[in-house]
């Protein structure tokens, strides 16, 4: 089993058309900076096959919708001193999930399984995938600019672990997910 200290496994993988080479500007939605105001599936609207795609992404939208209630948790929601989950943190998680699912679908023609989305007592949000092929836990912190804590493990035993810069390192995470669905 190998482990990576940080999610930056892109060396040698830059032949992928969607991945910007050094000095290049990101060209498409795949590497667009995350914003909390991205409406659901806006990137699909110009695509004639968007209805089919939206159907394939429906489980992801359902998971996001089902998790909406966590922003209503009051301080101390765990009967101890848990922090509330902010709307901003939830939107950040939702935007990341939508974009990731869209990339996996576009590049691998695979509908990403919906993760379990759950609150943490420090105000962060966990997204957990557990499938026969892999498991992956991503923790979205409540503070902008703070790195995201990630651990993933494929059936083969290959792992990805560490803290990623959400503005850069998440591309490594996406690549890991794409490879997961190819293996």
């Amino acid at each position, binding site marked *: 089993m190998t482990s990576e200290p940080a999610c930056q496994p892109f060396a040698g993988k830059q032949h992928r058309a969607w991945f910007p080479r050094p000095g290049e500007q990101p060209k498409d939605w795949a590497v667009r900076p995350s914003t909390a105001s991205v409406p659901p599936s806006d990137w699909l609207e110009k695509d004639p096959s968007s209805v089919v795609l939206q159907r394939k992404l429906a489980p992801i939208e359902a998971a996001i919708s089902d998790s909406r209630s966590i922003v209503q*948790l009051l301080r101390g*929601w*765990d*009967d*101890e*001193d*848990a922090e509330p989950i902010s709307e901003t943190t939830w939107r950040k998680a939702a935007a990341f999930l939508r974009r990731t699912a869209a990339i996996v679908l576009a590049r691998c023609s695979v509908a990403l399984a919906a993760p*379990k989305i*759950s*609150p*943490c*007592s*420090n105000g962060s949000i*966990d997204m*957990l995938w557990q499938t026969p092929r892999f*498991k992956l*836990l*991503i*923790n979205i912190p409540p503070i902008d600019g703070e790195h995201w*804590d*990630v*651990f993933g*493990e494929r059936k083969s035993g290959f*792992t990805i*672990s560490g803290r990623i810069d959400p503005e850069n390192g998440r591309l490594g995470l996406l690549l890991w997910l794409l490879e997961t669905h190819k293996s």
Partner: protein
Amino acid sequence: MSDGEWPPEEIPNAHTIFLRVHRSFIGPDGAPTPGAIKDHGGGMSTNWAKYCDAQAARQRAKTPRDNGVLSFNVGTVRSSPQTVEHTPTADDRSHTDVFGEKTAAIRLRLLESFNWAIQLNDPL
């Protein structure tokens, strides 16, 4: 009884510790969420089975019926890796802290190694 009256002891790897899990950390599928593995005041508070059973651990919750109890093998927790230290308090000789950063990796590892001692819906 003053704080520290109970001397800390070395906990053998073969022993068991109990972790209370509030219902807000139990998912719709009945499984604990990774958020259940969390520090509180420096470490993750648990109870050593030498001085406490699962029911007593549950009863220490603010609202016992809103809590389940997980059991962990101490050696497995230490290999995750975390530090398990007996930290008795004046009113809880069983109190044990699990020290170490609760990263995503650690939390997933620990969630692979628990057993239910008391499920949420088990009677008080």
